[in-house]
């Protein structure tokens, strides 16, 4: 029986998937680390919620505005910080995410402060979330396989060589950052219209690092890996309800093990595809056949 429990699981998986896809483009393909994406999620969530409640905008518009505002914020932040080297960029993102959280806690008139913002209409049903997730995946897939995504990979592999081949490193990094923020904002907006009640605490550093962990587990540089990662991270706790206390402990250990044993993640730099698997199996057979042939 399809009931609201399964509907909820679908929404949770899909919403997280959208945020993780953004993270995957940023971290997996461009190798930029952000611990601030929960901040962008909260910007998207609050903006969309306010649009729906205060201005009675239709659902689609609210979500779009939420994602757009997150994107604009990322553009502004990125203009300032994208040139910073690795760890410095990371800590500035983290700082931004925390600032956003504290600010939402403080603007009581607008966001309800720490008590949260309630009365958001319930719009994100399972089917809406699923459609959004599929759409998000297709768009991200196209993006990654276009010259933009190829430029991201080039930057990841070697910044100096990328620039020498005409790639404006700063511009593309910023583009990747904005893209991931839009996805985070999108996810946040959907989430708000599922929960109907949001608090700043939902989008803390823990949420940011959960996004990073999911991306790493699934595999850096693989969108299908991110889907797999999201399924694992979001579904396992639903299946093993009794072990929910140990959930984050397992993920922590899993991340360490993955980095030690399979550094690129479960599907690092590879996309899962049926044709690819079929091709590999047939190729192996060919090799075996030809080996057999040469022996005889």
């Amino acid at each position, binding site marked *: 029986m399809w009931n609201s429990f399964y509907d909820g699981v679908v929404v949770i998986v899909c919403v997280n998937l959208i945020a993780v896809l953004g993270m995957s483009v940023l971290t997996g393909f461009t190798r930029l680390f952000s611990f601030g994406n929960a901040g962008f999620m909260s910007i998207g969530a609050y903006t969309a919620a306010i649009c729906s409640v205060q201005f009675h905008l239709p659902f689609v518009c609210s979500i779009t505005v939420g994602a757009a505002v997150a994107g604009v914020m990322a553009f502004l932040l990125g203009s300032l910080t994208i040139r910073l080297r690795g760890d410095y960029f990371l800590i500035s993102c983290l700082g931004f995410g925390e600032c956003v959280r504290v600010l939402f806690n403080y603007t009581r008139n607008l966001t309800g402060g720490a008590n949260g913002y309630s009365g958001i209409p319930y719009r994100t049903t399972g089917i809406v979330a699923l459609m959004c997730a599929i759409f998000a995946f297709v768009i991200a897939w196209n993006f990654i396989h276009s010259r933009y995504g190829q*430029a991201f990979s080039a930057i990841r592999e*070697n910044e100096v060589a990328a620039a*020498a081949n005409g790639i404006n490193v700063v511009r593309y990094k910023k583009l990747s950052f904005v893209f991931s923020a839009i996805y985070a904002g999108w996810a946040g907006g959907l989430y708000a219209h599922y929960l109907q009640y949001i608090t700043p605490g939902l989008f803390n550093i823990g949420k940011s690092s959960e996004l990073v962990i999911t991306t790493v587990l699934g595999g850096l540089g693989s969108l299908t890996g991110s889907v797999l990662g999201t399924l694992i991270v979001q579904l396992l706790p639903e299946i093993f309800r009794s072990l929910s206390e140990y959930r984050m402990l397992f993920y922590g250990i899993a991340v360490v093990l993955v980095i030690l044993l399979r550094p690129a993640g479960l599907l690092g730099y590879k996309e899962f595809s049926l044709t690819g698997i079929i091709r590999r199996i047939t190729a192996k057979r060919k090799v075996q056949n030809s080996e057999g042939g040469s022996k005889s």
Partner: protein
Amino acid sequence: MSEDRQEPILEMKNVEKHFGGVRAIDEFDLKVMPRSIYGLIGPNGAGKTTIFNTITGIYTADNGQIFFQGKDITRIRPHEAAELGIARTFQNIRLFGNLSVKMNVIIACNMHAKYGIVDALLRLPRYRQVSKETEERAMQFLEIVGLTDKADDLASSLPYGHQRKLEIARAMATEPKLLLLDEPAAGMNADESLELVEFVKRLHDTYPITILMIEHHMDVVTNLCGQCTVLDFGKTLAQGTVEEVKHNDAVIAAYLGGEL
């Protein structure tokens, strides 16, 4: 047009670059004429790669000016240099290691791929058309360096010599007017460097490019370069045709000495 030909394609005037107290290059002058092959020679640490880095905008010169086709490019940024038509290879090979051989070249070809972000996100016909063309062009460049059959391999899995060739293919794929080669024959034996000489000659004949190269192998320089500059500790020791330089006393004393 014929007057244009007299203008140097690349001119460096009095260029200086220091790191801390070290003068990596000092009062460096250079004129490279269009369609020529020009050599930069000198021992390790003479500042040759620094010159490449100032031309391509990785470093900014502390003093002096650099002109490319008459345009001041002293304060250019690396990707702008590529867009203007300056391509380069690196002494310590810098490929996109985890990407396929073909993708390495496609990324360079993308500089001329004309489609917008909306085309890409929605896979509009324009995107399909352009990316198909880009892929075909990339394969052409792979054919020139003879790596067509390795197109789907990872760039990092190629043997050393092929990696050097792939770097050249990638540089050529940006359709440069000026190609900077940083020690293309490094680590090659006599046969391989002979093959390289032939390859560079063919490249130079097929495409309307000017080549500026750093090289240690004197036979490669003698075979390819019309003019060359000898550097030592950031200073110019001699400038002229290869024959002139070979017989320059300062050069013989400082560097070439026993080799000739």
